[in-house]
């Protein structure tokens, strides 16, 4: 057969087609869209609540007052509120599902015999998850800004350090904050992929992943564990407030990123070892 020979060659653009397909699969999935809708609802709910409370009480304390002064603060508050719980939960669902659901459906074996290399399989899953995290955080960002402006107006932003910056500079700060939020979830994505590779029951992987940040948060409250706390997944999560100061603490941010990279390195390697070595189940 003459066409046999060139059947082994990769066609051009194959990588992009593959990633596009995977990202499409993640973002078009109805369940994931519901999760994104949930994320989008968060700023609206918080914004309306603040609006109601402030009109009744007439000014409050801390961040809430700041929201009423500048809609930009709504995004900051939403990130701070969703960072410890809501966002990790949503990401755990999608990350835990990533490999386990395909194993459960049996689609993994059909990918393997195309063939798709094990490394590529893991990489495309990771990219799909990253896309979901970015879209999720971007959704929160955009909806927060729109809701904030609509409810509280476009005003300059008075930072926690007391300085006031222009609305555009404020948008810049919030955007930086959202990038840090995305980066802060990378470790969790790697953990989710690893746990997802251990089982063919998606719900187990989802729960297992969601427990990890919760456990980290509990450990942060134990004073005896001070020595290991800086390495915990969640240790630097709330440092995103540093972007609300005139001079953000760059060292702190760097530490936060290093912790995430370390978790990605460890759990990414574990996931790879697992995916590359085991029999394809079911």
């Amino acid at each position, binding site marked *: *057969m003459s*066409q*046999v020979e060139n*059947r*082994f*060659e*990769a*066609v051009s*653009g*194959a*990588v992009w*087609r*593959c990633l*596009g*397909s*995977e990202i499409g*699969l993640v973002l078009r*999935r*109805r369940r994931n869209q519901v999760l994104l809708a949930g994320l989008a609802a968060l700023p609206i709910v918080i914004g309306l609540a603040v609006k109601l409370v402030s009109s009744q009480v007439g000014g409050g304390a801390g961040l809430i007052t700041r929201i009423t002064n500048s809609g930009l603060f709504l995004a900051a508050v939403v990130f701070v509120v969703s960072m410890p719980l809501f966002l990790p939960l949503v990401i755990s669902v999608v990350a835990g599902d990533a490999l386990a659901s395909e194993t459960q*459906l*049996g*689609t993994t*074996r*059909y*990918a*393997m*015999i*195309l*063939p*798709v*290399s094990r490394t*590529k399989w893991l990489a*495309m899953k990771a990219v799909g998850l990253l896309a979901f995290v970015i879209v999720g955080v971007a959704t929160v960002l955009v909806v927060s800004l729109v809701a904030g402006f609509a409810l509280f107006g476009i005003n300059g932003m008075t930072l926690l350090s007391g300085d006031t910056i222009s609305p555009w500079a404020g948008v810049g700060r919030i955007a930086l904050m959202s990038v840090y939020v995305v980066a802060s979830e990378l470790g969790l994505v790697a953990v989710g992929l690893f746990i997802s590779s251990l089982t063919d029951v998606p719900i187990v992987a989802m729960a297992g992943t969601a427990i990890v940040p919760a456990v980290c948060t509990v450990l942060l409250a134990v004073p005896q564990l001070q020595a290991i706390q800086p390495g915990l997944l969640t240790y630097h999560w709330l440092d995103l407030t540093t972007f609300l100061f005139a001079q953000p603490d760059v060292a702190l941010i760097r530490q936060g990123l290093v912790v995430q990279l370390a978790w990605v390195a460890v759990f990414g390697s574990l996931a790879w070892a697992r995916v590359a070595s085991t*029999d*394809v189940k079911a």
Partner: protein
Amino acid sequence: MSQADDANVTADAVVTTTGLVRRFGKQVAVDGIDLAVPSGSVFGFLGPNGSGKTTTIRLLLGLLGADAGTIQLFSQPMPKAASKVLPRVGAVVEGPAFFPYLSGDANLARLQAIDKTDDPRTARVRRAEALERVGLTAAARKPYHHYSLGMKQRLGIAGALMRPRDLLILDEPTNGLDPQGTREIRNLIRGLHADGATVIVSSHLLSEVEQVCTHVGIMSRGRLIAQKSMDDLRTARVPRLSVQVTSSTATAARKALTKLKLKPEGTDPAHMLVTIGDVPVPKIAKALVDAGADILGLSVEQPGLEDIFVELTGVGFDVAG
């Protein structure tokens, strides 16, 4: 069954295994099999439930690692040469598997998108052709979870047929298909065979594949107990005589047959099966009439694959524990 018998086919084999072993815990699911699937054959891979057919197929495709032995596909070692070999292979293993919330067509498109050697310029056309070939064109846009069992099975086969293949491995392809669908799959296999492809088709229903196979391999409890061409198998068959008499004369008939040194078999006393051997049929007929048996039917039968299987294994077609 001596493997030396098959030395002539090994030379031109598409699939070869030597001493292939796979264990699950203590259980040996595949127990040292030497498979040789000749190029251009339709290879019926037969055996009862749990005999190790699917496990063998998964080993061939690199989905499982072997505990011992070697595997060659197109004379290249598996799983080492997987990236070179597998594009030439289409397979349905242990039932179809697709995303329930995607349509049949979208599912096939997804397979094409993650296959780096699949040409995107012709992807759509090949998809449509594959769906056409399995008779799913009308249901192409339906979500997969609305498919019937047979439609799912057809989509699985379409997935294997989206590209020209030199080898097709179909694990129980007629599972869940209606008689018409089963016939269509048989015709599909004939068509692939005519195009020069080698087809391995596993089944526990012997009669289903008997008609299309050129070769068979028979598994039993993890062992390959026979591997032959259908022609060899046919010549090896011993014809039997089916004797049907009225029940009141059954005992007399049985006596007459035993007197001729024949061994009547069969569960129904009034319907006996005898291996004829050297005794001429007219002589048997006369003996029966002389004994006063009222003959309802007398015919020479060629045993089917199933009878041969029973002969080979001595156990019948039951699940091994």
